[in-house]
């Protein structure tokens, strides 16, 4: 059962990812990206990380993908021109990615991980909450500040300064 689900999600994820990099239409690429993200949310469910799955959807699908779509639409002329998306060095890039894949494949195939057969109590939410407000509180706060800064920075960067009507 689970391998079956895993395969479905893998198709979603990897297929989506392949779609992202192969399609000529940027808009489709974004939609494929969403597909891939949804597949990954499924992965997380399979990995007993339900909360993370929800986070994945909220953040990636609900925020980042929407942002990307917005960006694509705001730079609409690019799409209508229908230029080839690939650059001059795409062959080299493909080769690098392929070599990388095969080299890194050595790791999961060869390494003996210290696997554990324990089963978590399932109350991962409580654990997450305790960790965030406990031992990881400082990184947590730092990330909050980072997000705030990114928010403001993005607003300032994207603001059209030539627009006089801005209040």
């Amino acid at each position, binding site marked *: 059962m689970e391998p079956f689900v895993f395969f479905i999600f893998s198709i979603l994820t990897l297929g989506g990812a392949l779609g992202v990099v192969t399609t000529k239409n940027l808009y489709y690429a974004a939609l494929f990206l969403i597909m891939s993200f949804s597949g990954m949310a499924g992965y997380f469910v399979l990995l007993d990380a339900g909360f993370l799955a929800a986070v994945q959807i909220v953040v990636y699908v609900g925020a980042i993908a929407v942002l990307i779509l917005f960006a694509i639409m705001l730079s609409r002329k690019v799409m209508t021109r229908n230029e080839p998306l690939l*650059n001059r*060095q795409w062959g*080299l*890039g493909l080769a*690098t990615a392929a*070599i*990388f894949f095969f*080299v*890194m494949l*050595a790791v999961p195939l060869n390494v003996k991980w210290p696997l554990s057969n324990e089963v978590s109590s399932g109350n991962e939410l409580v654990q997450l909450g305790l960790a965030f407000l406990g031992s990881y509180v400082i990184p947590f706060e730092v990330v909050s500040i980072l997000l705030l800064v990114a928010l403001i920075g993005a607003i300032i960067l994207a603001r059209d300064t030539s627009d006089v009507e801005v209040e």
Partner: protein
Amino acid sequence: MEKLLLLTPLIPIFPLLAFVIIIFGANKNNKLSAWLAIGGIGLSTLTSWLVIAGTIMGGHHVQAEGWRLPIPWMPTGEIVFNMGVGVDGFTAAMLFMVPLVCLLIFIYASEYMEGDPRYARFFAYVSLFAFGMLTLVIADNLLLLFMAWEVMGLCSYLLIGFWFEKTSAKRAGLKAFLTTRIGDVLLFAGMLILYSYTRTLTFHELFKPETLEMLSGTMMWGIPVSALISLLVFGGAVGKSAQFPLHVWLPDAMEGPTPVSALIHAATMVSAGVYLVARMLPLFAIVPDGALRWVAIIGAITAFFGATIGIAQNDIKRVLAYSTISQLGYMMIALGLGGFLAGVFHLLTHAFFKALLFLGSGSIIHAVEHGAHHVNDHHTDPQDMMNMGGLYGRMKRTAWAYFFGTAALIGIFPLAGFWSKDEILAEAWLQWQEAGFMSLPFWAWLAGTLGAFLTALYMGRQIGLVFFGKPRTEAAAHAQEPGNRMTIPLLVLAFFAATLGFINVPFIKGGWLHHFAGEVHAASHALHLEAIPFQVSVAVVSSIVALGGFFLGWAMYRNLKAGQQDPLEKMLGPVFTVLKNKYYVDELYTAIFIKPTVKLATLCAKFDYDWVINPIVNTVGRIGVVSAIISAKFDEIVIDGLGVLGTARFFKWTGKELRLTQSGQVSNYLLTIALSSLTLVGMYLFFIRM
């Protein structure tokens, strides 16, 4: 009675409170300030009487062994230093005298100081002064005593320099502080040594036999430690009680307002030195013929020497000041001969009659000043006896009080001075009888008796000059008796000057005062704690001497006219000039101590900044600058020209060639990054994992 003794810490608190309130709040309101000060000392007086009552009720136990209230004050290593107050018989005796005399002086001053721009400040200072003296008296350890001692030093500085607009006054304040400071430093050193050896400064622990034995047994620099400490402590007393050779500040201290003179000379500051020596007497006496004889010697010298100067002074207060020096010498003689009781007795009586004399003189000065004001005369010095004369008719109350004081001072039977001075001379007399002719007691007796004659002489001179004859100036002619607040304290003091001697009349076996010897009992085997029997011969001799001296002085000066030459000057000639200039001691000190110190200071400053140290620093700096210039040249020619520029050219060339790799294409960079990391991973896998 323990409950009554618990009031002891309160005694100095009241004047302190008065001081604080005046400084922080009441200094705008003159009348309130004065009443605060008087109220403060009045409450102290009442409390003191309660404590005295407690002491008397406590009987021998409290009077001899003392009662203490220590608190932990300062941690020193593992031990904690205890600070505290205590009461024993001696303290109780002092507590009778000090606040009472202070109270009378304060009341007197409230009228005397009227019209002064810093009236409130004056009462703040005197309250602090009283606080210092009362703390000193009730201190149960040497450190607290020393602290109070220094507070008094501060107050004397402030009060002597109270009219600091006058150059002489501000100098006098400084002189008083620095001179006594020298004594204080000696005392401080003695205290340190004592503390180092005994680990305590509390009197009753110091006077334990084993402690005393240890101190007398230990030698330092060839003399017993106890003797060394005693001498250093005595140094403090010399400074404070204006003994030779540190007496120079006291006559100058007359620059302060007259109530201050009374306070310093009668009740508080100078008594502190005597009190200290009396308090520490067991330590002095533990080594026979040790420090004590120096006390006696200094006392004898001072007693005689002070009296001789006294006869040549024209300033009414200066005469009394030298008289004080001389009388303190008497007390030192007594203590130096082991006559604890005699010394303390004289200390008590002297406080009253000297306060009386000072206040009386203040009253006279006030009157003359008033007269001078009346006739619009601003040049007459109101303190100069040569400007007075015939005042008896104008101010009878003061005059009679003054007569009582004079009689007490010169020792007329049966006033207080007679009993107490006689006790001292008898002490010396008896010891002379034992030790033989030309021994120390003999010289002490001789100095005392001659001093008594001189005392009578200058007092006679003073009475004659001030009260008799015709007024020598217009100011004196218009002098006026001051108000009740000034005269009533005089009368009260006169009463005590007349009667206080009866507390220790020698006809009662052993006297009565010895109950109040206090902790000094601890070393009683070396001291005379009981009144000695009445010595008729001594009494007769001193009475004759006193009466003779007095009438001589009185007769000579009774009818002195204005502008007439001083009869004694006619008689003594150059000797009188020497006496008038106080044996040139001040000039001597200026020449051998003060000027060289200032010179040395100037030299040090020059040495520091202009001659040696700073120039060295600057030279080092300049060497640095010069070597920097040389290095700069070297740098420019050799290193820069050959080394650096060559290298730079090399890198310029390589940079030119290699910059072509910067294509500006993000993708290229990314590819480079990816390939490089891949290479690294590959190398890791190949070289390390394999």
